[in-house]
């Protein structure tokens, strides 16, 4: 077996199919989109080469673009808090439970398997103002004026509500991953720490979290990338509105390409998303490598 895997031709046999599929689906698509980003094209009639005009407009003339980049970063931070931190805290809480653990785990996981469309419908009804949704109906019991609180249509809150909905949907997934990692921490380490007089918080901070650090990093990267490319919840819940206050980069790309029929411009937005994702990945990797070296 070892001999076989040492042959370059055999290694290629294993790697090549996946490489070809990846190249065709990802690399070729990105290259094609990169090419289109230099065109003024409505998707129907022939495109016109405009050089860097789309990028110039995007960076220097489109007043919405930088606001949307800001929204996307803020959204990503919210998602990291909800999904990674929230998932981790709930997983730690579950490891301390002796009863009802499975029931709670199942309950927390249910939103993960419900379709995004259904989740968004539920949240739309929950946060409705006219007719009064569940949230406002409950709040109005304390103050009648609160029956008219706006959530999804409030320019100052719509992004946060969308982030909450996505966080609610996915945090159960990361909770399960963290839980699996936490219960794999060897009992001997915990016992040794206890004998040395470490309290519960110290055990978590000094033993458990460092032990599951690779899992935390993996989840961080997955959530980070996923949030930068997030589309469905924001699109379905608020349509990026009101105006562009809850707009994210990916739905904005879609809006430019498919609603405005500016394929070239939409492709330029897509390329900036790719660059941002790569940059964030590289920065995160460097930070992790630096951290590992210091340790």
């Amino acid at each position, binding site marked *: 077996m070892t001999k076989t895997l040492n042959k370059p031709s055999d290694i290629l046999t294993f790697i090549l199919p996946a490489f070809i599929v990846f190249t065709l689906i990802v690399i070729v698509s990105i290259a094609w989109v990169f090419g289109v980003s230099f065109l003024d094209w409505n998707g129907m009639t022939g495109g016109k080469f405009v050089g860097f005009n789309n990028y110039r407009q995007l960076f220097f003339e489109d007043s919405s673009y930088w606001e949307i980049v800001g929204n996307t970063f803020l959204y990503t931070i919210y998602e990291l808090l909800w999904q990674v931190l929230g998932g981790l805290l709930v997983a730690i809480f579950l490891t301390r439970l002796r009863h009802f653990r499975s029931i709670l785990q199942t309950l927390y996981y249910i939103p993960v398997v419900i379709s995004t469309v259904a989740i968004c419908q539920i949240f739309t009804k929950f946060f409705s103002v006219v007719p009064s949704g569940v949230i406002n109906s409950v709040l109005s019991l304390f103050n009648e004026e609160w029956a008219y609180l706006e959530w*999804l249509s409030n320019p100052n809150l719509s992004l946060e509500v969308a982030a909450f909905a996505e966080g609610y949907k996915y945090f159960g997934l990361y909770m399960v991953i963290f839980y699996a990692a936490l219960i794999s921490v060897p009992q001997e380490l915990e016992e040794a720490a206890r004998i040395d007089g470490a309290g519960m918080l110290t055990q978590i901070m000094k033993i458990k979290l460092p032990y599951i650090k690779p899992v935390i990093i993996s989840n961080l990267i997955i959530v980070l990338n996923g949030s930068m490319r997030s589309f469905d919840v924001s699109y379905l819940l608020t349509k990026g509105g009101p*105006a562009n206050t809850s707009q994210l980069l990916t739905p904005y790309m879609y809006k430019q390409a498919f609603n405005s029929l500016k394929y070239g411009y939409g492709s330029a937005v897509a390329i900036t998303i790719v660059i941002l994702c790569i940059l964030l990945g590289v920065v995160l990797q460097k930070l992790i490598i630096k951290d590992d070296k210091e340790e």
Partner: protein
Amino acid sequence: MTKVKRLTTILVLLLVSVSLIWAGGSKDSGERDTITVLLNSSGSDETYNTWAEIFEGFTAETGIEFEYELISNKADYMNKLQLYISSNQLPDIYGCFNGPYSDAAKATGALLNVQAELEDIGAFDSLNKAVVDFLKDANDGIMYLHPQALYSEFFFYRTDIFAKYGLEPPTTWQEFIDVCQVLLDNGEVPVVVGGKDNWQLTRYLSFIPWRVTHDDFIMDWIAGTDDFASNEAAQAGVELVRTLGTGNYFQRGFTSSDYTDAVNIFFGGTGAIFYGGSGLIPNASKMYAEGKLGVFPVPSMDGMENMSTDIPIHAGVGIGFNAKTYDATMRQLLEYIAEHYGEACYHAGVYSPYNIPIPEGMDQLFYDVYPLFENAEQSWVSWDDKLDAATMTSLADAEQELALGMLSPEDFISQMDATIDSNNGR
């Protein structure tokens, strides 16, 4: 090696056979057995019901089958249509928006001159004039699309709520605002609107320019010979959206309600005024029968000369016939349509674009609303059809900001005038 050769030969033979079979089943044989159809429909709405009756009747007569592709969401439909136009794969019959989409289909040679065909058949003159006006091409004035139906739009209002506060249906926009203020002061929701859907706020923006200029402002704005900054009617439209939005005359959270939500809110009993149309007659039927509902046309703009037509009439999404696949069978179908379409419309619960009497047994509102637009010759002008997609998308964002008070009327005007110039390379 011999094995490889044999396998290659078999493969080539297989490919050739498949190609021959494929070619044999195509239109090259000269006989058509199917007609392909693409519609912006859910499969249970009036669009589907009208065409299904036509197609079933034609199938019974000729044996020709119909292959449907139905897409209910308008944005998804537009994407699919655009894809078919750019890949030159439009079906035999397809729903098409009069404007940039019909222009693109025409440019590829896949849009039949329906007007010429209907004139040849002798059915063109029996079409409602306002419907023809709505579908005529902006460049050459020819109607390339067959009307879906005759849709009329108007304001529904709650007669019981109006009576409670001694209000009369408004005839001018100032009266409209005054009525809204009285309703608001009394704790009512004055106007219900589906502000999440672009076209709903665009209607309010375009009401005054339409009553005062018909299509002059929008066409001149597109051409670059007029703008918001210098057109009083257009500025009044901007002020109207701003006043209705920031004055809390629209229901709270209106930007998170789409049209369907708005329909459910109003016919569910909340709100005093709602802009809808003949497509909502089935929803309005019960309230109307109970005497709780009335209708009024689009108010006039005070201090400006308004055109006489005050009920917007349009033809819905036009129906295009693929000129590249138009043959004797398709001509036969068009003749069948001209003969039976009016009847099919009424069976589906919409007004017919062909001038035929409304049959008995329809909802009372059908008969009561008809006199309001019976003699109308000028159609509604849909800005969302006329404007290019990029300008329309920007307009939709800007009008939401305007209604929410995030954008002043002056900023809206300068922003939109600059946007259309930029999108048209001016």
